[in-house]
């Protein structure tokens, strides 16, 4: 048998159904007699609802019901929640305003759901939705996070004066002030981290079924964490107790964070199925995805760094305004705080850091975690500053980074995190060598001869993954623990089912999780099946996000496998009449060390189930479960090098080479890890060059609400990437895994912008670096070629 364990490039077990059109996504699941929901959404960014007239819609062909916020309140359906409490620096709790699934009195962003029409078919629902008459009294709107706290700005919620949700701080202000007072060099930058739309290609969807006889709900939905959805829908929104609600997340077509959250639409479908007595289906169209899926990023930041005469960083001061949109989405509060400011030390030994973060309401779509969630924003701050500092003191960007790297571990940063391990110089060296960094000047000269401005940019990122130790996140305000669960069921014939609380929506768990079983038990991966995404099958789990499935999910599976192995070994020793301490599991067999006695794993499984000859006191069967709570975050890190050519005549940017050297700790399947990096890079390069959500300042309309207006990275915008890894195994989990799902999106925006800034010789360049912005920056800097 070919090696299929840890480190093997095993082709994916799940592929066949996807390449033959047999995938089973939410919208593919046939449900008898299902009705279709269409949401009536606010066309205004901010308005009072004066009156809703549903009569014409109710009379339309095929309409089963038209439901509004009033009906929701009548049925005592709870509000949506934000599950992470943040306290302001004055000790006051965050000012979270009510977030009703259907707005009742006031709408606060374009797309805010107001009513739902349920009809026998999709077209009837759409037709009737146009007949719902909503009378609005328009109010002034504010969309700009930098303007929303100003005196006289339109106020969104009475609970949050000045539209301010919290004013939070982390670090030692006095120490930073002292560091700045004694420093030799200073740099400061203003940054905008552009608002992004996650845009998983599968739109969100829900099919809700209510069984009146049993009082039991089933919800098929596009979720990254079906158990968390069940918990929130039960415990907070109050639609059904957990044992009466089954949530199934079948094949899910990408998530990137946007499918973590508990949204209005899924909640309303579930409720409508009970209220109207029909199964209710809903699938977002793309315009709805743009309006109604939680967006990402949207920070405005001023950052200052102080260095001593030998170019060592002595202090970092950061002030960020984070736009959370019109309502607080499920984990929104944690993103610009504990997932952001805690990473501001980067890969560097910085003695003093102080960060202040104001979270604000605006009349825009709610903002929450999107691939990287806080960590891309932190990396952008630190890595743009490092380039600015290198320019200021006149040394090479690679050298200033090298000079400031953390070199001893564990390392306690001034912003909570304790890095367990890493070798930042190794990934820097690997990336520089692959990118032929030393020879860059000759490439620049050659490009210059062709009228092109060539630039090179670095980013040395760090992230915190494997979210997270439950006690730690609890002490920081999280409403949930972030452990993971697993169950391993060995069948009598020796095939194995692994149940996990993680959810795969492209990550390849059905393959990688089976590889761990192959590694430990010597069982071929095709004899292992991975079960996930169904609350009726898996007892509990926290889902997949924050690059946690390897570090946390596999650790839980590993723990359950250890228990299975211990019991199987006891049985094997008994069957071979050997002492347990003399028995080892090797290549799928239990062997008595130093003898030729052996018994296949499958035969031990059979013996466990026949139970004819078990050691005294041993229960029949071979099935074990485990809960694994991580001891620490994990800290993937690496260096990205981007090389660009700018056409100064058009402002067009071409990425000519992109190199990634990542340290993800132990790698289960290099093929899958490389794929994760490729995808992350595309999203990060998309942020840097193409993507950006634009709201009209006056009307609050989302101007970029289709793929024609919002530039997604396409194949011709990208290059083939050079990816490689260096390895320092994580020290705080049994497998040494750090996680790889977000790195690409975290490190690449800074690398791209640093490269363009290098090409142009400019300090400031906002994302997305569109041809217009780049052209203007090139003109402003009067580079010789641009001036010709």
């Amino acid at each position, binding site marked *: 048998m070919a090696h299929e364990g840890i480190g093997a490039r095993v*082709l*994916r077990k*799940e*592929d*066949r*159904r*996807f*390449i*033959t*059109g*047999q*995938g089973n*996504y939410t*919208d*593919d699941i*046939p449900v008898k007699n299902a009705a279709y929901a269409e949401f009536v959404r606010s066309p205004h960014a901010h308005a009072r609802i004066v009156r809703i007239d549903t009569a014409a819609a109710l009379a339309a062909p095929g309409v089963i019901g038209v439901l509004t916020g009033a009906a929701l309140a009548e049925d005592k359906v709870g509000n949506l929640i934000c599950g992470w409490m943040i306290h302001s620096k004055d000790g006051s709790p965050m000012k979270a305003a009510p977030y009703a699934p259907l707005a009742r009195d006031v709408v606060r962003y374009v797309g805010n759901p107001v009513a739902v029409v349920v009809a026998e078919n999709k*077209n009837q629902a759409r037709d009737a939705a146009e007949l719902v008459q909503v009378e609005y009294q328009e109010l002034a709107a504010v969309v700009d996070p930098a303007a929303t706290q100003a005196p006289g700005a339109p106020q969104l919620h009475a609970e949050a004066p000045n539209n301010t949700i919290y004013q939070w701080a982390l670090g030692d202000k006095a120490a930073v002030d002292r560091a700045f007072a004694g420093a030799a060099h200073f740099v400061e930058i203003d940054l905008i981290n552009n608002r992004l739309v996650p*845009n*998983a*290609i*599968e*739109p969100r969807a829900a099919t809700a079924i209510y069984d009146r006889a049993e009082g039991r709900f089933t919800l098929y939905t596009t979720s990254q964490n079906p158990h968390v959805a069940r918990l929130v829908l039960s415990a907070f929104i109050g639609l059904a107790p957990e044992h009466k609600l089954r949530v199934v997340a079948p*094949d*899910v*077509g*990408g*998530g*990137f964070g946007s499918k973590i959250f508990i949204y209005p639409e899924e909640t309303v479908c579930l409720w409508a199925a009970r209220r109207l007595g029909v199964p209710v289906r809903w*699938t977002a*169209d*793309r315009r709805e995805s743009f309006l109604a899926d939680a967006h990402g990023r949207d920070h405005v930041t001023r950052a200052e760094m102080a260095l001593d005469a030998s170019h060592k960083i002595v202090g970092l001061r950061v002030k960020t305004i984070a736009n959370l949109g019109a309502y607080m989405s499920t984990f929104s509060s944690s993103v610009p705080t504990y997932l952001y400011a805690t990473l501001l030390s980067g890969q560097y030994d910085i003695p003093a850091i102080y960060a202040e973060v104001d979270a604000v309401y605006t009349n825009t779509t709610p903002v929450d975690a999107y691939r990287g969630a806080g960590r891309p924003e932190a990396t952008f701050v630190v890595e743009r500053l490092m380039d600015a500092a290198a320019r200021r003191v006149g040394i090479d960007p690679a050298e200033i980074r090298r000079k400031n790297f953390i070199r001893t571990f564990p390392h306690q940063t001034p912003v909570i995190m304790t890095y367990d391990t890493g070798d930042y110089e190794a990934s820097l060296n690997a990336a520089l060598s692959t990118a032929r960094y030393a020879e860059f000047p000759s490439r620049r000269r050659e490009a210059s001869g062709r009228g092109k401005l060539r630039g090179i940019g670095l980013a040395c990122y760090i992230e915190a993954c494997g979210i997270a130790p439950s006690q730690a996140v609890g002490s920081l305000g999280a409403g949930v623990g972030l452990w993971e669960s697993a169950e391993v069921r060995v069948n009598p014939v020796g095939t194995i089912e692994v149940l996990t609380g993680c959810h795969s*929506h*492209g*990550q*390849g768990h059905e393959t990688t999780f089976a590889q761990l079983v192959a590694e430990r038990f010597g069982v071929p991966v095709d004899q292992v099946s991975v079960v996930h995404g169904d609350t009726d099958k898996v007892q509990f789990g926290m889902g997949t996000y924050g690059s946690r499935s390897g570090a946390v999910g596999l650790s839980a599976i590993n723990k359950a496998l250890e228990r299975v192995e211990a019991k199987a070994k006891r049985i094997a020793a008994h069957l071979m009449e050997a002492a347990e301490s003399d028995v080892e599991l090797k290549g799928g067999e239990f062997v008595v060390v130093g003898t030729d006695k052996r018994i296949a794993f499958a035969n031990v499984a059979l013996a466990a189930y026949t139970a004819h000859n078990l050691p005294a006191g041993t229960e029949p069967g071979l099935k074990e479960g485990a809960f694994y709570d991580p001891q620490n975050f994990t800290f993937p890190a690496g260096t990205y090098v981007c090389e660009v050519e700018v056409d100064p005549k058009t402002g067009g940017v071409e990425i000519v080479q992109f190199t990634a050297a990542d340290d993800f700790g132990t790698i289960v399947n290099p*093929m*899958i890890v*490389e*794929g*994760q990096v*490729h*995808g*992350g*890079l*595309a*999203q990060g390069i998309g942020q840097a060059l193409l993507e950006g959500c634009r709201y009209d300042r006056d009307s609050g309309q989302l101007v970029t609400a*289709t*793929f*024609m207006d919002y530039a*997604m*990275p*396409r*194949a*011709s915008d*990208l290059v*083939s*990437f050079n990816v490689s890894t260096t390895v320092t195994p994580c020290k705080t989990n049994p497998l040494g895994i750090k996680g790889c799902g977000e790195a*690409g999106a975290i490190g690449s925006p800074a690398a791209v912008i640093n490269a363009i800034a290098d090409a142009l010789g400019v300090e400031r360049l906002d994302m997305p670096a569109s041809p217009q912005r780049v052209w203007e920056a090139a003109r402003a800097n009067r580079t010789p070629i641009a001036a010709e």
Partner: protein
Amino acid sequence: MAQINVKVNGRAVARQVEDRTLLVEFLRETLGLTGTHVGCDTGQCGACVVHLDGRAVKSCTMMAAQASGSEITTIEGLAKGDALHPMQAAFHEHHALQCGFCTPGMIMMAVDLLRRIPRPDEATIRANLDGNLCRCTGYHNIVKAIAAVAQTGAGA
């Protein structure tokens, strides 16, 4: 109501549907061929690409009635029984898919690309994928898979 007579994946089909039915709705909802996906409803993402009389079309921007009289191949009809089409096999071998949602449209587009241009270079492959969005793979392995099939000449 519109009368639709088509051959889908080699099978003759006759159905009456509402006039405004899109080809993708006809395939997914009337015929239950859910391998063809809808990612944007505006002809931008390409998740809905099928072959109509041997050419790639976006089935979300075509009425079912317009397709009447045609032969349609969807992702479900690409393999010959258990034998995968070389493009399907290459997507598997080169890890050219992650969540799988764009994959059917991407594979149908890739097959059409090699029909038109049997030996494309990387830039040509990338340019010809401009009508298909993938959010997972960064296109890296999709380009590799298509190039690998082109190399063998087995794409058509």
